[in-house]
């Protein structure tokens, strides 16, 4: 059996809600698994599906997009645009062999440090049994 | 609105609470609601069992839920408040605690039973309130009430902590249902206080004291009878009145009935079909209140 490698999750969080929730989790000393790597964008509406494809191509075991709750976007509607893209993208990503558990969009407000923990923990727990993903280069070699 | 329900009477309704079983069946028949008793149901795993072995208590309870999941009708009616609470608690714990869910799953598998998905645990009172509705109750009630106002007594297990249809601290469904049937009620602060449960048998001095407080406060508020939703409450309040008279020297003799009995009566059922002769306390009052009128007698002949 191969050595169990911890899954690595790329998180793209909006600056105003989910990134702040992650900061709040920190100031509240809420503990969650160290598997996520956060990239900050100003709004979840900035998330280009290319980023997601790139992350999976580079071997991310999961991609988590975090934005403000519907109606709460700092830029009024960016999270809706994100939702529209996510609806189609998750179908495509699934067709390309990425399990549902690996790709999530979650609304986490600045006050929901606890929810951030729940989401991250849940995602890690669901991805772990799926085993590691191979990167494209490993496949083609 | 469903017309067919699975039915789980529970152990008490086969002995001390047999009048409850009779009257619920009679009442439901009058309202065209069909009860299908679960085959080979077992003890719900109530209080006493839970005190010994939690794991298998949940399995016991889950077994009944699983039987209902197998049955045609997923709404499972149980008149006994204790059974109601335990079944609901089992669903809650199975949902929230994976360790308990596993244990239950293993127990069910050993019995070759399916998982307990999609069963809705229901109490007859809540069915009357929600499924039948106050309007229909009003229309179905044909006999005018001849007795004194009634104190509605809910006891504890039905209204907390898993009750989701009525208010936990101040339930009112029974009052509303009786009112719709033309039966007057009094309000009293002890309507959800504990009747003492099995303490009446184990430590009578304590258990019967609790019964005494409830009886006394209901009488103080002007009630001519107490109406319950639970076989144990009915038993405790009914069967020990002689003992209470003896220990307190107070002349307490008040009928303790099931809500299904008084409602069944209002809707025209026969006193015997409702098991009204099975009450111990307040026999004279019961005779007066529930004597069929002359016109009815004639119609019968």
């Amino acid at each position, binding site marked *: 059996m191969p050595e169990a490698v*911890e899954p*690595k999750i*790329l998180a793209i969080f909006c600056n*105003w*809600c989910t*990134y*702040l929730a*992650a*900061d709040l*989790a*920190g*100031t509240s*000393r*809420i*503990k*969650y*698994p*160290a598997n996520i*790597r*956060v*990239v*900050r*964008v*100003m*709004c979840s*509406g*900035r*998330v*280009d*599906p*290319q*980023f997601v494809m*790139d*992350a999976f191509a*580079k*071997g*991310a075991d999961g991609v988590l997009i975090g934005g403000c709750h519907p*109606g*709460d976007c*700092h*830029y*009024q*509607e*960016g999270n809706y*645009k994100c939702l529209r*893209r996510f609806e189609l993208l998750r179908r495509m990503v699934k067709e390309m062999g990425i399990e549902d558990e690996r790709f999530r969009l979650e609304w986490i*407000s*600045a*006050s*929901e440090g*606890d929810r951030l*923990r729940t989401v991250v923990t849940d995602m890690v727990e669901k991805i772990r049994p799926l085993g590691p993903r191979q990167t494209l280069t490993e496949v083609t070699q | 609105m469903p017309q067919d329900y699975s039915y789980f009477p529970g152990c008490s309704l086969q002995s001390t609470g047999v009048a409850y079983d009779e009257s619920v069946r009679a009442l439901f028949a009058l309202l065209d609601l069909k009860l299908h008793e679960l085959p080979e149901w077992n003890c719900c795993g109530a209080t006493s069992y839970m005190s010994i072995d939690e794991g298998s208590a949940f399995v016991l309870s889950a077994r009944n839920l699983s039987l209902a999941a197998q049955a045609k009708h997923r709404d499972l009616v149980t008149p006994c408040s204790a059974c109601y609470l335990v079944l609901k608690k089992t669903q809650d714990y199975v949902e929230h605690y994976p360790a308990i869910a596993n244990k239950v799953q293993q127990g069910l598998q050993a019995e070759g039973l399916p998982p307990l998905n999609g069963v809705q645990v229901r109490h007859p009172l809540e069915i009357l309130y929600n499924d039948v509705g106050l309007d229909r109750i009003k229309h179905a009630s044909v006999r005018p009430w001849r007795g004194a106002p009634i104190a509605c007594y809910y006891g504890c297990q039905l209204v907390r902590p898993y009750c989701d249809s009525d*208010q936990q*601290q*101040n339930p009112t469904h029974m009052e509303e249902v009786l009112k719709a049937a033309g039966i007057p009620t009094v309000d*009293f*602060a*002890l309507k959800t206080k504990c009747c003492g449960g099995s303490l009446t048998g184990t430590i009578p001095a304590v258990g019967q004291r609790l019964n005494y407080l409830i009886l006394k*406060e209901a009488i*103080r508020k002007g009630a001519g009878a107490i109406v319950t939703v639970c076989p144990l409450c009915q038993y405790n309040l009914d069967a020990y009145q002689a003992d209470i008279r003896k220990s307190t020297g107070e002349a307490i003799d008040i009928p303790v009935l099931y809500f299904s009995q008084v409602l069944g009566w209002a809707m025209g059922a026969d006193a015997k079909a409702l098991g009204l002769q099975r009450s111990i306390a307040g026999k004279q009052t019961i005779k007066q209140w529930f004597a069929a009128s002359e016109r009815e007698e004639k119609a019968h002949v």
Partner: protein
Amino acid sequence: MSEEIRTGVYTCHCGSNIAATVDVKAVAEYAAKLPNVVVSRDYKYMCSDPGQDLIKQDIREHKLNRIVVASCSPHLHEHTFRTALAKGGLNEFLFQMVNIREQDSWVHLDKPAATVKAMDLVRAAVCRVALHKPLTKGSVPIRADVLVVGGGIAGIHAALTLANAGKKVYLVEREPTIGGHMAKFDKTFPTLDCAACILTPKMSSVRAHPNITLWSYSEVTQVDGYVGNFKVTVTRKPRYIMEDLCVGCLECIEACVYKEGKFVDEFNMGLSKRKPIYIPFPQAIPQVPVIDPETCIDFKTGKCKKSCVDACGERHAINLKMKETTEIIDVGTIILSTGFQVFDAHRSPEYGYGVYPNVYTALEIERLVNASGPTSGEVVLRDGKRPKSVAIIHCVGSRDEKNNRWCSRVCCMYSLKLAHLLKEHTDAEIFNFYIDIRTPGKGFEEFYQKLRNEGVHFIRGKVAEVTDWAFDPSEEGKLVIRVEDTLLGFARRIPVDMVVLATGLEPHADAQEVRRRFNLTCSSEGFFLERHPKLAPVSTFTDGVFLAGACQSPKDIPDTVAQAGAAAAEALALIDAGHVEIEPNTAFVLEEDCSGCRTCIPMCPFSAITFSEETKLASINQALCKGCGTCVASCPSGSIVQNLYDDEEIFAEIEGVLSNA
């Protein structure tokens, strides 16, 4: 671009905040080997002056042209380090911050895993920062006019402070009068000065102040724009009496066909009745009555002899055809002081509110003891009798997972105050039932001591229930408190005549709507969230919007007034600076690449993108763009780019984060 990239990486220990969970030395050593990295250091406190000096010095000595600092959240110190870059002679945007405290050391326990995470994040920043370009901050002018929303003591104080500083203030209040909750109070703790005596002069000053425009009975219904230049729509409900014509003689009320009050008087918490035409209380500001169309006969049937109109006579101040109007104003900053609502005691049914008539809320008692209240200060039960014993139940709706989790902070003190006032008015036996007594303010503990000496009972125990269950003859006709006296260790039954519920404070029912309207965030309990709990307690994440008073969290009058002053000062600081700097993270169209497909245009919530009929291309108005980047992500031909968050920068960050250490 043939410039050689020379990056400096600085990893902060933050005392032991980071160093306890992340092997800071290892991170610094790792960073030193990354491409383009010329200098990599670790330091105890990077945000300190010596820490910043380190950066400045290295920029000079090692000719650094990119800086990465791995420390805390950019929301805390990005500004600090950018300034250090600028002082070191480097463009402040050739910088990237790595959050290894809030999002690493503080949230993980596994030191090796946290260290690897820190390395990943540092590597990502090093990759990204190489692509950074020098940028210049934008600047927008700040309008001097200020909007204050909510006319309680917080709004009043903030408005007066600003107006006294010479700024024009719009004060918008939803009720027919300003004054808020404070206007309903009798005395204020712990000094027991009369609330009206200290509040009404301030209310009058608001009315009289030339710099204040007061719109009562009005609500902000829409907010557009951004810091410096908000466009605010205010909806003014018709009060059916023209404010500019009314002289406040109140003869119309006298003349109403209803000889006596008949409808629930909201100001007196329903303890008295009012007419359809009324003024909330005698000192209301503005001193103008209002007609309630729900209860006025003329509105309901059209058949009233309109004696109020006759009484007004030639002044013609009554206009029954008045319609709702809207005002649109331009302001530079906004102060929100929308206050709180009182917990609805019906939600704690064990205390019998609404069931037993002699169970009152604290606010009802405030009116009852008030000399201008419904009983002229006479404390009597519903049947007119004077209570001989009173129970005050603390923490109703507070510190309770079923209702509100938080401590409402003012109830202990107002309960003590009411205990004192009730004792004074009735000489009744007073029982306080509490879980903990919290008196941490100036003069508060002394007040508590005074109450103990007055013979008020303090029983530590959360009351289990209030019933009319008379178990003992001494309890007949009384309300019976059942409680465990936790200090004495036994259950008690205490019969009383009156029960007072010390109901807690909670956010307004429509706080979520208001929050959205002003683009704010709420903390988990629903109060508006401040930018930083310690360092920016009156600012919000929306620049130019400030908070004052209990809309941010429960607070007493002194704290509210202090915070209102702070909010006013923050607004003044912005106004007097004349302009505010804005992040240069805007998007712009690469004109030679744009195909004019117009996909981007409906993406922009700020209508910053327009399509030029001449060039057939899209273009982004830099003043309107707020930098969300939604258009960038949707441009089908990659012809829109965004400063600080460009595709290539984000790709580099993703690549950096996902390569393995």
